[in-house]
């Protein structure tokens, strides 16, 4: 179990690295999907199958498909690839790499204090539902307000007014 989770975690890190270094947008999105799937595996192995399923359904299965859809609409070609190469010069890596390495060191330092108790229980969908509609009900309602606002706005912007082309 431990080995599987660690392998999935390594795959997700590798996938994330590939996401930021790819020059073709669709390849980057595909690596992002791999990263999300690996994260879902980690979640499932840590005893949260519901979160894992939602990760795949919502992020990998819906949002990333929309990303691919938009990229297909944009019809990126060779010029965009060249521009991407232009942006990804070694000099651009220095700042982010420094900041990320500080974060990485912090993480490695923090890892020592974690205790490996192993997985003792599973979080079932029922428990997730009870906590969402129990202590976190305000958050759920606020999020639904936000989504409804987004929906109404999108409908308003996309609407065809009579006599308009």
């Amino acid at each position, binding site marked *: 179990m431990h080995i599987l989770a660690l392998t999935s975690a390594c795959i997700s890190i590798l996938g994330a690295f590939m996401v930021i270094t790819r020059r073709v947008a669709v390849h980057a999105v595909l690596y992002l999907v791999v990263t999300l799937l690996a994260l879902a595996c980690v979640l499932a192995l840590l005893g949260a*199958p519901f979160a894992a*399923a939602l990760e795949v359904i919502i992020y990998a299965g819906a949002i990333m*498909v929309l990303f*691919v*859809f938009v990229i*297909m*609409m944009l019809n990126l070609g060779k010029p965009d690839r060249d521009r991407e190469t232009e942006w990804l010069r070694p000099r651009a890596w220095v700042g982010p790499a420094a900041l990320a390495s500080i974060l990485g060191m912090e993480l490695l330092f923090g890892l020592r204090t974690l205790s490996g108790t192993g997985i003792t229980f599973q979080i079932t969908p029922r428990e997730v539902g009870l906590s969402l509609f129990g202590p976190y009900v305000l958050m759920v309602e606020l999020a639904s307000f936000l989504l409804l606002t987004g929906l109404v706005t999108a409908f308003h912007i996309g609407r065809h007014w009579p006599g308009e082309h």
Partner: protein
Amino acid sequence: MTLLALVGIVITPLVILGLATLLTWVERRLLGVWQNRCGPNRVGPGGVLQAAADGIKILFKEDWTPPFADKGVFVLAPAIGMMTVLLSFAVIPLTFSSSIAAGLNVGLLFVLAMMGLGVYAVVLAGWASNSKFALLGGMRAAAQMISYEVFMGLALMGVVMMTGSFSLRDIVMAQSGLWFVLPQCVGFVVFLLAGIAETHRLPFDLPEGENELGAGFHTEYSGMKFGMFFIAEYAGIVLVSALITTLYLGGWQGPILPAPIWFTLKTTVLIGFFILLRAALPRPRYDQLMALGWKILLPLSLLNIVVTGAVLLLHTAG
């Protein structure tokens, strides 16, 4: 136990692939019956070896990758389609004890997740082919499948609410008194329509509408790569039929006959119904398909959830 599970994991995909291949022949024979002609009846008894002949033919065809295609993604796309369909079968219970993971407590969500990933096969095939027909087919597929996934998930919530579990085994067990097709008739119809749209079968095969898009997303595919799309589509029909059997028609349950026979019987009837739909109905326009989804199926499935919830509440309160 572990050995038995391994055997199951090896055998299940083989059986599904065999069934899907056989189904290509069954469909053509049934279409022949309904259209008052013979269909393929020359190879083997009744033409049953036609599927094998087609398989051998497609294996020996040139496996050509167009020079303008994105090679890696082009090869990956049919594999994704095949894999997601085959993985979904893991959580479907043939009988109470015989399945790979029917007891998974998020089983239904697993199926939905695999169907969500299945969209990539079509979309990436459309993008990687780097041609206009394929791209248009891929875009249609993306919009159609994402839309119909929404109603599919919502329609299933009625079943989940009545069972109180996402596990497909629990769902079948909850139908020992009454099949869910009666109390959940609205959800059943929505799920059936969404199932056809998800497998992009006729009459909802707009991503590959041959009179306007060549062959849609798989225009550039040939040889076994095309064969994989083809077989994955038929495996998808078996999957949706098996899912409807499990979710709405009581799965393996039934009188007198043994459990696997009941499951097979129900699934076979549904597959036949899918083929009949192909023989009977013309293809709608794309905007009609989307309007049917968002203006009729979405409100219907939401209403289904509200009514189911209200009835369940009244039932538990009273």
